[in-house]
């Protein structure tokens, strides 16, 4: 019996070790050497900036050369930022288990950009961008982040990067006097930080804020409101039978509609419907609607 139990334990331990080993051995495809390292060297950057400055010297302004140098710097840095982002993203996935634990998640979420990625190169890029990785903090609501999956944050990072990348590429069509290197540098900073965990979290917060705002446009009715709406509908039926639209006209004018006793019956009905539909999506307008319809005497 004891022998059997020991055998089971050893077998289970070997299975667990074997499975863990498999996980550790999973690797992506081999990356070609040409794209596996940053390509834009610090010396290239310094040289191109000096050449750009010379080309934009008012005494010997050369906008064609300035654009060429600006574009080379921007494309070079974008290529390196892209390399760093993929490296950083890969490390995030490896560490993604930590995201399930509130405390670690929070700590990781607030870590600086250089913490997980290719530290040395990130530091160089940040130095070129003139930004410190530290200090780029966002306000944190633990509950908010606990509800978000790791994949959602990475997707938000990608979305934010794509938006900034498109803006930069559009701007590069302009000449160096309309989109100078300094403006490009500002956008490159944004491009870099969009690809950090903080950038992803900020994007998610903004998306959630936008969703919360759209929720205000959902119809919110109570039974009391429905009772009043039914009374209004019955009153409208009476108006159409008697053909006395004076109270409705008074109400519509109070709601900003340009109608009078010469307006056709069908136009008056549609004007009323337009006001009602607008009020259904806007709580403030609905408040006014309910006040004015009583004031006009459509309902008591």
């Amino acid at each position, binding site marked *: 019996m004891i022998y059997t139990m020991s055998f089971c334990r050893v077998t289970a331990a070997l299975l667990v070790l074997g499975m863990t080993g498999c996980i550790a051995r999973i690797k992506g495809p081999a990356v070609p050497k040409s794209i596996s390292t940053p390509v834009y060297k610090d010396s290239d950057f310094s040289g191109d900036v000096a050449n750009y400055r010379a080309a934009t010297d008012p005494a010997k302004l050369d906008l064609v050369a300035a654009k060429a140098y600006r574009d080379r710097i921007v494309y070079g840095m974008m290529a390196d930022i892209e390399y760093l982002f993929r490296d950083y993203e890969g490390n995030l996935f490896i560490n993604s288990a930590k995201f399930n634990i509130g405390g670690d998640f929070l700590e990781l979420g607030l870590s600086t950009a250089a913490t997980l990625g290719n530290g040395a190169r990130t530091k160089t890029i940040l130095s070129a961008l003139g930004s410190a990785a530290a200090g780029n903090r966002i306000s944190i609501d633990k509950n908010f982040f606990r509800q978000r999956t790791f994949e959602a944050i990475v997707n938000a990072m990608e979305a934010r990067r794509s938006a900034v990348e498109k803006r930069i590429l559009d701007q590069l069509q302009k000449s160096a006097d309309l989109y100078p290197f300094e403006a490009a540098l500002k956008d490159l900073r944004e491009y870099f930080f969009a690809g950090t965990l903080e950038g992803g979290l900020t994007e998610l917060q903004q998306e959630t804020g936008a969703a919360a705002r759209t929720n205000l446009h959902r*119809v919110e009715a109570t039974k009391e409101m429905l009772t009043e709406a039914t009374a209004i509908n019955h009153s*409208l039926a009476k108006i159409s039978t008697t053909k006395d639209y004076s109270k409705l006209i008074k109400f519509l004018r109070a709601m900003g509609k340009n109608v009078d006793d010469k307006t056709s019956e069908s136009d008056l009905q549609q004007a009323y419907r337009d006001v009602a*539909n607008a009020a259904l999506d806007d709580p403030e307008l609905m408040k006014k609607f309910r006040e004015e319809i009583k004031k006009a005497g459509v309902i008591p």
Partner: protein
Amino acid sequence: MPTASHFVDGTKTLAEQETDLNDMEQLGAQKVTSYAESTKPAAGDKGNEALLQPVPFGQQPPPLELIALAAGDDVAKAIAAQVSQGKTVVFHETCWVESKETLVIGVRKQK
């Protein structure tokens, strides 16, 4: 004929959504012709969208009633049962109800 569209919070109960839809109809002198879960960003997360058509004053149809079907229920049988009770079916669509995707039938009593 102009059509109005409104969103309803799909986290609400079926009864609450029924109140919202009837409020839209009564207040706006219009009738719901379609109601289903919405994929539009403006609907927000788990939102349903109602499409409504104008009704001339005084010709408002009877109130709308919502019926949720359980998973595995026979839709055709459920609709036939409503018709046999003298009701007309306005729509049968998948909607968000209390944050769950639910097949909902919208019916009215015949005038």
